């Protein structure tokens, strides 16, 4: 089964921890930026932040 974006991102982070080469960091940051963009789009699609009674918005 194909790995999720989160899994690929975390695999890339592990790679950087083992070897912070320019190539590894570049690949890691590319996946991070993809994940961040997806999060931004997902939050923008939630009217009012979709906070429920047992859900707290933080930050």
């Amino acid at each position, binding site marked *: 089964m194909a790995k999720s974006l989160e899994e690929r991102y975390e695999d890339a982070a592990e790679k950087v921890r083992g070897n912070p080469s320019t190539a590894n960091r570049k690949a890691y940051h590319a996946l991070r930026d993809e*994940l*961040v963009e*997806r999060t931004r789009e997902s939050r923008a699609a939630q009217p009012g932040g979709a906070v429920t009674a*047992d859900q*707290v918005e*933080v*930050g």
Partner: protein
Amino acid sequence: MAVTTSGLFLTTWIDIVDATQLAIDLTLTTHRVALFNNTITPNFSTDTAHGVAPYNANEVSGTNWPAGGVLLSAAAAGGTSVAPTVTENPTGTLMYDWANDLSVASTTLSGARCALLYADALAGNNAIVLINFGADYSTNNGTFGLSPAAAGVFTLDLTP
């Protein structure tokens, strides 16, 4: 005696950047989120760690939320990772965020007022950030969720 604000722990953050070189990697998913009630009074200048006062009592735990808290690697829906990220957002500001909301199903918890994120993989269990909910929250066989705001879990303005 109460939780009045969210904040970062100075002792930890100074140790990260001084000669101590405390190895906090914010993107690790081995950090835990522990819940506390409103009996505690955080002191962001002197508090150091989970398991050390005031975080050695008044912890909120229950069904599917153990004492010590949940790992970020299993804190999103379906027991998946919240996928922590560190980016520049907006320009000149460091933002720590979770790509996925924290969402733990089928919990029964009473009176959670704040969440402590701490480095469980470090021997010191160093406290990183405390999130004040502003009110007490409880669940009864329900989902306990935390949704970071657009500005993430926290930001550090490095170019004020």
